[in-house]
């Protein structure tokens, strides 16, 4: 590949990802997931008393978050700390968080 074509190809990639950034917001998941780091450590590494969030797949994290957030009609809602926390997010936010953490 010539130098010029390299530049063009790279340029395309850059502008394509910049455009994606405008719509999907690559750092949206990073920002939302930073709201886990006070307890689960910067970048989700394991800490005494807190499960590692890093190294899990996105579907595992999403599944656990939805499980913790679940409110069953007629049943007392779970009241542990993670349940209160998990209930705050929309499904779309949980997916963004899970995707970001899975990439760590």
């Amino acid at each position, binding site marked *: 590949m010539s130098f010029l074509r390299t530049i063009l190809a790279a340029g395309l990639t850059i502008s394509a990802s910049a455009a994606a950034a405008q719509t999907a917001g690559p750092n949206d998941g990073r920002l939302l997931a930073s709201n886990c780091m006070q307890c689960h450590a910067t970048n989700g590494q394991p800490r005494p*008393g807190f499960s590692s969030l890093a190294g899990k797949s996105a579907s595992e994290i999403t599944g656990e978050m939805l499980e913790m957030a679940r409110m069953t009609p007629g049943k007392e809602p779970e009241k542990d700390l993670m349940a209160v926390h998990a*209930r705050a997010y929309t499904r779309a936010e949980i997916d963004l968080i899970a995707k970001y953490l899975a990439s760590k």
Partner: protein
Amino acid sequence: MDRRQFIASLAAGSAMGLTGLMPAFGAAIVNVVVVGGGMAGTTAAKYLKLWGAASGLDVRVTLIDANAAYVSCILSNKVLTGETTLAALTYRYTKLAGLGVTVVQGQVAAVDKANRVVRLADGRTYPYARLILAPGIDFDYSALTIAARGLTADQALAAVPHAWKAGPQTTELRRQLVALTNGNRVVMTIPAAPYRCPPGPYERACAIAGWLKANRPKSKLIVLDANAKIIAEPVNFGKAFSETYRTIIEYYPGVTLKGVTWDSATPKLKTVSLLDAGGAAVTMPAEVVNLIPPQKAGRVAIDTLGPTGLSANGRWALVDEISYESKVFPGIHVIGDAINSKQPKAGHIGNQEAKICADAILRLESGRAPYAAPVTNSACFTPITPTTATWLTAVYRYQTDIDPATGQSLGTKSMQMVSGNPVGVASETPTGASGDNADAMKKWFASLMVDTFG
């Protein structure tokens, strides 16, 4: 290299922008100065560097604090009881420096907004493109008469310590407690909300009462609260006051504190003056007074933003919580205890405000809008006795303000609670005060400080 040189180097056919390995090299320089290396400011500096590396910008961060190291207020009530020490609660900026933050020790005296320069008391100056003010709180004694014959005004204030910034005052309050004779009276005063750490004074009451119960069991702790009732964890603390510490604590809500007077020759004969909840003037004797005064944003925020950039009462910075930028002065962001907010003034949530501010600055400097709906969380573990604790958590989201009377949108947005423990019910903390919670508290604190200081 500035923006012009960057364009010139591209024109010269440099391919470095293509490698993606040196994102900051050749990128536009953004100078961010952070004033205050506490819970909020330190986190902002750290995450600006962590995230700035991948932003395509050359983010240069200077963190200025008056002290060489930070002493955590969180868990400092356990210094009063001798369970821990200030040394064990001291954090250094070494990891931040390792991330490339320029750490400066110095007192910020003024901000020159027109020229975007921060000036230290010793004359050093630091120019900024964006300024983050994270100075925490200052105290307001203006409505109180604190006077001792034979002492200067400052000496008198130091003799009725607030211990609401961990440091020498914490040591002084501990010294006074240890010097108590069994049967002596301790008075502590709680200011009207908002103040730093809503459950903090009630936690303080439990800490002092626990120590008295074990060491000076005939002594009393009289809690004078300016608020109409216990404003945080009313069930947990109500139970602690009326059951666990029934023989020690007398709790009086709705009190207007007027002052404390004494003669320096007899420091243990202090007189506390107040108006009780019914408005009647009362005086009471006390050997030790832990006076937690009304609060306002740290002075550098008041001086820089006032009066137009402050809340109507002149105490707190008005910011748009999407980015924590001042509502009045572009380029100046304020985070942590110094802001006017529905979020509590607490270290855990100040840490998250800082990340949102850092992310918004990176987006704004890249010509993009801040993330539209940021989320924060507050988590508070509270020791009730040396071996038990409770906890409370809440999540806040940036959303439309609704007029509670009409249910209509007010057209503005701010951080609002979207999930939290039920408050005021029997199971405020599902398990109540427990040893498991006390254990979790230690782990939570360690994690929070690692996320903040590195």
